[in-house]
């Protein structure tokens, strides 16, 4: 019985560690561009963990641009906005430029109603638009090899 309980506890602990790892992947979408898709709610512990991972990856990959994707963040309130801004500020100190993408109209209105100022952070509605801007900053251009295709992001 004791063994069983211990195994169960261990399993839960392992699962928690796995979930922790899964919930904040930092993806190098292009050389010099990191993307951080944030899924679910953001609390202090998670924000800190996310921040640490991101800063380490910036150093490791020598990235110049970070795209924070908040498409899957259900509610952006004062606390979440504060965490996001802290991430933006610390990444900036490392010399990276940060865009926040995936803002919905509802999020935008919430931020305005709460009187929250994102402090000059560049925001876009979709990841595609953020990526387009990032390419532009790095002096890269996406061109189609087929003449009539529109390759621009949605």
């Amino acid at each position, binding site marked *: 019985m004791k063994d069983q309980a211990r195994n169960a506890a261990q399993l839960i602990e392992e699962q928690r560690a796995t979930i922790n790892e899964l919930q904040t992947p930092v993806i190098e979408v292009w050389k010099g561009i990191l993307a951080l898709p944030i899924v679910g709610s953001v609390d202090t512990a998670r924000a800190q963990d996310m*921040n640490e991972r991101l800063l380490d990856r910036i150093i490791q990959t020598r990235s110049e641009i970070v795209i924070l994707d908040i498409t899957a963040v259900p509610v952006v309130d004062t606390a979440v906005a504060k965490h996001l801004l*802290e991430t933006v500020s610390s990444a*900036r*100190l*490392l*010399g*990276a430029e940060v865009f926040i993408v995936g803002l919905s109209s509802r999020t935008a209105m919430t931020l305005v109603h709460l009187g929250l100022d994102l402090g000059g952070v560049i925001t876009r509605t979709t990841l595609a638009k953020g990526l387009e801007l990032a390419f532009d900053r790095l002096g890269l251009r996406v061109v189609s090899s087929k003449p009539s295709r529109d390759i621009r992001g949605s």
Partner: protein
Amino acid sequence: MARVPIIRVGDILLATIQEDLHDSDALALQESLTTELERTGANGVLLDFTTVQTVDSFLGRMLNDVVAAIQLLGATTVVVGIQPAVAMTLVELGLELKGIRTALDAERGMRLLGSALGTSVREG
């Protein structure tokens, strides 16, 4: 006294901040950077933080003040090599160094300064 050497490279002053910078050294650096800037008429300052692993509120304040003073003297500052832990501490202290240019390392910082100074010449 472990003073921070200030090296002049062309139009740029270069200062590498050491890990164990005492408060008095920090103040001395502030003083010597501004006087050196005045004396040489340099247009850019590069502050290298690569070896600094921890900062306290004093060093953070010093950094803010010295950059403000450099700006008043008409020069551009680029801070490079800030480590993750240092960045997080500065943000927690509310010293986000708003308006200060940053770069990952000295090489990129020099490039950034070069382009910033180059533009100002063309505009002027």
